[in-house]
């Protein structure tokens, strides 16, 4: 039985639906990431799961019990969860007091409070800051204190809303280290909203993709990142080559897809004549200065029209009649002497392509 079950849930604010027909099951001990652009409905869904809001329609079940509208059931379920907001609020007291408050409200014995708070602060690497005024903490430190405050009540479910949004890279790394420790050491169910795709990929057992208030796809990180179900999900997860075409030849599952007069070979179960989108991840494209003999079935020559350096990588846009974007290391780009205007060959394997049905 799923620990959390959401059935056809919708939510509206001022007559505008921000969540539509969401169905979701989360198992006990699972790490589930909600990914999607800003405004997709991730925070609303997290708040509904935490029972801070009542949905406009549909049901929410916690541990098999319908907790959608009964205040008594909602309170009982909420006590088994903890919620860390995107911008945590700290109280006007020291770090220790901030973490201990949940236990004090529950009238837990002082010595138990001390031990639990120390453990929670050790878990987030803030044990040396117990006496510090919480209002003087940096954004990352504040987030870690908020996570400790959530952990101290031993929740069965930890709900995290964008735990690293608006943080600097060093703070992000520290918060992620804490999350990794929590997931590894505690038997806890985690639901995490994030717009940081690699973060979702790194931590989650399963990912739910939200776009415009709808749960567009649910699957393992591999399924979502390598086999997105539609164009919107593909673009969200970084498949930057999305080409519209039609299947013109089919032999078993090997298909030829016509894209602007070019033939691309791929593997697909879709039928002959089907309108499709060809999805190719930039990192799956290889470049050579001359036509070479290789097993890659797709090879196009073109001209480099743009080069952008991103850290140690270079993004290269090549006009091959069809636009292709590839990513390679700076060392490779230098070794091949790549510059704007230079002609080269872009190749990619049949198995690197994901083909989906086109809706237009």
């Amino acid at each position, binding site marked *: 039985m799923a620990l959390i079950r959401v059935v056809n849930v919708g939510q509206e604010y001022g007559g505008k639906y921000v969540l539509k027909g969401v169905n979701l099951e989360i198992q006990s001990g699972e790490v589930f990431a909600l990914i999607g652009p800003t405004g997709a409905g991730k925070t609303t869904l997290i708040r509904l799961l935490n029972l801070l809001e009542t949905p406009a329609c549909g049901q929410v079940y916690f541990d098999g019990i319908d907790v959608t509208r009964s205040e008594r059931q909602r309170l009982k379920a909420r006590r088994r969860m903890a919620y860390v907001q995107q911008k945590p609020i700290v109280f006007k007291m020291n770090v220790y007091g901030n973490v201990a408050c949940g236990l004090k409200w529950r009238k837990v014995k002082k010595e138990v409070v001390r031990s639990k708070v120390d453990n929670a602060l050790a878990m987030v690497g803030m044990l040396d800051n117990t006496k510090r005024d919480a209002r003087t903490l940096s954004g990352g430190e504040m987030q870690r204190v908020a996570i400790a405050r959530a952990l101290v009540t031993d929740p069965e479910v930890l709900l995290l809303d964008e735990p690293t949004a608006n943080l600097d890279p060093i703070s992000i790394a520290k918060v992620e280290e804490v999350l990794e420790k929590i997931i590894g050491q505690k038997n806890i169910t985690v639901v995490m909203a994030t717009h940081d795709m690699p973060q979702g990929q790194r931590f989650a057992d399963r990912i739910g993709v939200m776009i415009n208030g709808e749960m567009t796809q649910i699957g393992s990180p591999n399924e979502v990142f390598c086999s997105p179900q539609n164009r919107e999900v593909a673009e969200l997860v970084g498949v930057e080559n999305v080409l519209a075409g039609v299947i013109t030849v089919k032999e078993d599952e090997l298909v030829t897809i016509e894209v602007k007069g070019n033939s691309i070979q791929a593997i697909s179960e879709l039928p002959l004549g089907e309108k499709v989108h060809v999805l190719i991840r930039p990192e799956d494209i290889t470049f050579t200065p*001359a036509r070479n003999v290789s*097993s890659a*079935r797709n090879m196009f020559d073109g001209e480099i029209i743009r080069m952008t350096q991103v850290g140690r990588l270079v993004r290269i846009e090549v006009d091959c009649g069809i636009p292709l974007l*590839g990513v*390679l290391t700076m060392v490779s780009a230098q070794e*091949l002497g790549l510059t704007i205007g230079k002609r080269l060959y872009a190749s990619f394997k049949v198995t690197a392509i994901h083909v989906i049905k086109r809706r237009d």
Partner: protein
Amino acid sequence: MKISARNVLRGKVKQLKHGVVNTEVIIEMPNGNEIVSMITKESAEKLGLAVGKEVYAVIKASNVMIALE
């Protein structure tokens, strides 16, 4: 061979397993390590792959995972 992929490893075809569409190619490196490649059957035929043939396994740096024991 000039190619953007950073890893170009020479070996010999040790085994070919043909499927309906794909062919699994096992390449043996000089030190005995093996690399498995999945290519289309047509590509395997076009390249004239056969057991013992010298080939290159080409792997992009971004496609190499690193794991610890």
